[in-house]
């Protein structure tokens, strides 16, 4: 059994809330190598033959099971591209926890580009949680460029929670989805950038089947001199419902570019977008200060609430 050091344990706790080995299927990747893996009767994880990543096969009818596939990088200067493909059978109900933590104390950049593809069968329900986290005080950058591709079969549902709150210097996130009839996609993205970080996050959701629907909500906070670009696009190719929302708090010398866009290619496509950028409202700070919080504490509470 692979022995994790303290930094690696901390990273696993941050990205996957793991304090011990989880139940169910898992695959831990540490510094570019497989560290530990477990399969169950219904969930099989196999390494790709060319070594570029893993395939996760979830048998039809698998319910109340989970898969954890966290990745940590604690050595400076590592760069990797990993392809993880999820093949989810029909009538499943599973939780998938991914996420990547980088601790870079060195001078070279560390980078993990994870490409996740989901092929979700009919009537299946997936909850996907992905957290990204960076730490370490070296000059080397912590870079994460995840690509998530989601193919939802008829009447399937995917709920995605994408969180990147701290320590990632540069990220370029791309999420692509296409939905068949009656499929539903819910995305809750939470981003916070600080220092001179940059975060680009693009969604491209195609509602192809009748009565498909997507609700993509991004909340972000840009502090100090950081930059964010949020590019949320929904395309309605059938009678469908789509909603996107980017709601951002801007602070200090932060910069935010929100580009929500809608494309309707069918007369019964009902699409809505909302976008708002603003600083923390003064009366919110004052209210919490009248409860005895300092201005800084009030600011933290407001941001925590906003990103919850």
């Amino acid at each position, binding site marked *: 059994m692979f022995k994790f050091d303290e930094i690696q344990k901390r990273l696993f706790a941050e990205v996957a809330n793991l304090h011990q080995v989880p139940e169910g299927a898992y695959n831990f990747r540490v510094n570019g190598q497989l560290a530990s893996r477990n399969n169950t009767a219904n969930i099989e994880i196999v390494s790709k033959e060319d070594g570029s990543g893993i395939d996760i096969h979830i048998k039809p009818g698998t319910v109340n099971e989970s898969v954890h596939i966290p990745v940590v990088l604690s050595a400076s200067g590592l760069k990797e591209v990993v392809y993880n493909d999820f093949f989810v059978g029909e009538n499943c109900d599973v939780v998938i926890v991914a996420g990547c933590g980088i601790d870079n104390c060195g001078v070279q950049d560390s980078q993990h580009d994870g490409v996740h593809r989901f092929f979700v069968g009919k009537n299946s329900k997936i909850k996907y949680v992905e957290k990204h986290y960076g730490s370490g005080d070296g000059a080397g950058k912590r870079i994460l460029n995840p690509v998530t591709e989601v193919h939802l079969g008829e009447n399937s549902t995917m709920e995605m929670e994408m969180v990147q709150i701290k320590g990632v210097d540069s990220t370029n996130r791309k999420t692509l989805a296409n939905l068949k009839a009656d499929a539903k996609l819910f995305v809750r993205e939470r981003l916070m950038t600080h220092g001179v970080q940059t975060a680009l996050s693009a969604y491209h959701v195609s509602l192809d089947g009748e009565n498909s629907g997507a609700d993509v909500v991004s909340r972000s906070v840009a502090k100090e001199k950081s930059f964010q670009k949020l590019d949320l696009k929904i395309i309605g190719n059938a009678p469908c419902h789509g909603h996107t929302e980017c709601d951002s708090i801007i602070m200090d010398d932060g910069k935010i570019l929100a580009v929500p866009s809608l494309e309707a290619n069918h007369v019964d496509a009902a699409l809505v977008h909302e976008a708002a950028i603003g600083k923390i409202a003064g*009366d919110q700070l*004052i209210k919490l*200060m009248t*409860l*005895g919080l300092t*201005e800084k504490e009030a600011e933290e509470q407001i941001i*925590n*609430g*906003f*990103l919850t």
Partner: protein
Amino acid sequence: MLELKNISFKVTDGNKQVDIIQNLNLTVQSKKFVVVTGPNGSGKSTLARIIAGIEKPTEGKIFLNGEDITEKNITERANLGISFAFQQPVKFKGIKVFDLLKLAAKKKLSFANACDYLAEVGLCARDYINREVNSSLSGGELKRIEIATIIARKTKLSIFDEPEAGIDLWSFQNLIGIFESMRKNISDSSIIVISHQERILNIADEIIVIEGGKVSRQGAAEEILPQIIGTDSAVQSCKKMTREA
């Protein structure tokens, strides 16, 4: 005890200075329910905000139980025991009713404690505790939650800035009940309500009338109220509702 000595508050409007509050002197004793009234624009709300530290007076001194708090900021005053309920309750994104009550109580709060505070303002905790303090709540609900945060703080001095503003008549009837109960359980604290509603003035021990940024009258409610009934300082919410209530 709260004392305001020679308080003035000026603002600049274009090239000229406007006096909102002029050389105002005021003492609020402990164990008193005091209502500050006066016509619109008389400086009532500004006075409340000056006491809470949200506005800084141009001149004058403020003392709380003998301590000069003029230079203290909002947080320091809050921690010295001043609570302030906003005229327009503040909305948040992601902060829930329970979170706000916990911050107000400054301690770990059980569901039962939160339930007590919400019950005092006529809300069932089960329905509200996990609601976000945002515009999905009605004006009346937000107002009650605002008052619950003040109750949770249990401070020596609570200031309510026009609690009746922006709520419907039905909620107003309930609001009166909440203030009546606060009056009954005042113990050694004091309550200042900024309002020109006759039914709130009726609950007062003492009434202070502000006109043109100065105290024009101050005294026991039974003395002052008959003098101001029917003026801008003591208005009825709705004649029909008042008759039926």
